[in-house]
């Protein structure tokens, strides 16, 4: 596994983007080894994205699988090979958004129970208890938000992407991305309750 594959889309250097460009060019010529290299470089990032937005690892494998399958089918539509990572991320986000909306819709009809948050899937095994409590509360609040706001906020404040990257990943304008993040931030701030010990100190 190449180190740093799970890093956000905007923290990788220009060499990495250039390497992506070469691999994409080869993958377009049906070079499976090149596509595998792309997969190994970016699968961790895609998996992190899926799990962190959903708040569970339940369908993450399927999402990553589908995202790479679509990416492979539509490589010819990618204008700049160097942008593969962000482009892949936008596919993952679309797939997750579809699932979130569908689940919410089914839930509103009483056909589906809300998917439980899997704290262990989100939190690192080494996370301290305070961080786990924070994640648990934030994710339980995120579950009650509209999918677009939730996704934008998660990309910005959980996955730590720049605003422009959030806009790219969510396929919207920068202004819309900012608006969604702000709306989500306000919603969370109004409802977030500091843990007992922290409040006392």
């Amino acid at each position, binding site marked *: 596994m190449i180190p740093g594959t799970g890093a956000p889309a905007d923290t990788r250097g220009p060499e990495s983007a250039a390497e992506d460009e070469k691999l994409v060019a080869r993958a377009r010529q049906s070079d499976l080894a090149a596509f*595998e290299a792309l997969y190994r470089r970016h699968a961790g990032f895609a998996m992190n994205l899926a799990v962190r937005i959903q708040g569970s690892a339940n369908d993450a494998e399927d999402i990553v699988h589908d995202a790479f399958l679509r990416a492979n089918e539509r490589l010819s539509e990618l204008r700049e090979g160097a942008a593969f990572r962000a482009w892949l991320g936008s596919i993952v986000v679309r797939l997750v958004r579809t699932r979130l909306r569908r689940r919410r819709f089914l839930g509103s009809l009483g056909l589906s129970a809300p998917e439980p948050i899997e704290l262990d899937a*989100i939190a690192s095994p080494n996370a301290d208890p305070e961080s786990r409590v924070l994640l648990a509360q934030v994710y339980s609040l995120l579950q009650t938000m509209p999918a677009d706001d939730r996704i934008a906020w998660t990309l910005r404040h959980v996955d730590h992407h720049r605003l422009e990257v959030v806009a790219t990943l969510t396929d919207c304008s920068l202004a819309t991305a900012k608006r969604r993040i702000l709306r989500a931030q306000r919603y969370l701030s109004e409802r977030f309750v500091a843990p007992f010990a922290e409040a006392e100190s």
Partner: protein
Amino acid sequence: MSRRRLPVIPEAALRDYSSSERVPAVWRRLKVELGARSPSSRRSPLTWAWAPALATVIFGSGVFVGARFIRPQALPGLRAEPPALAARPAGPAPTQNTAEPEALAPQAKALPARGRRATSAGASTAEPLSFTASESAPYVASAPAPTPEWQRLVEVGDFVGARRALDQLGGFDVAMAHASPSELMSLVDIARASGERGQAMRALRQVVSHPEAPEAPLAAWTLGNLLDQAGDGPGAAQAFALYRRLSPTGDFAEDAAARQVDVALAAGNAELVTQLVEDYARDFPHGRRLGEFRRAAAALALRGRDAGPKVEGARDEPEDDNDESQPAQSATPAPAPSTDTR
């Protein structure tokens, strides 16, 4: 408790899946699918513009052959439906094939890629009428439909549509009967999306019956969660134990071990708790919940000595573990669970 500004979520607090076992597992699935696709499947959709033209040519050939060489009076099998034939005299009427099976041979030979069904259709004139006819009709033979509709719908996240498509194919159980582990996981998604927990669990059990499948560990983990939610603590513990066997160093190995202890604690089985906590300490010496489990095991043993076998409120979970845990389990009586520990 007090309201306070939302703190920053530290990157280090988040699980990183870069080196997760899930990544190579997904690639194995992908590789199979990508290998099965021709390079042309990656081309622009415009490159498929020739497909309708080809279909038209094939259909036209069928019409020509039908109009030119097949006489209606030579088709005794059509007597029952004369108006239908009259309505479309040039079409590749299905019953033509039964009257003149030899006329179909070239078509069957021209379409070898249709696989086993096309082969069987061309090989035997003793096949049922409708089957033989529909299989050898040219436009059917050229339709590229290797993926069932329900799977396509699952891929686009349309679980309601997928459920409907499944029902049209005979239902969930029929699809389950000959599904691969990967397809079974899709079926699990459909079942869970429509709230059919029982169906989901049956599909998951079928996946774990193939322990060599890459999906098996995840299926065991998911099954454990579902059983846990359904209140079947011993069953959940078995599923978590299975996960640990299938994936001893997997992403959820520690959590699975912890969930086994949780179940045993809820059941008040002091002996089993002691054994499982020892296992947990051995496999995860820096385990997140080791201290908590040791205290709980000691308290359980103490209470067992003081008050006999009955133990209440055995689970002593910190407030931070608020995953999809089992609130009702601590109130359950204390049957000896048939937990498979390792």
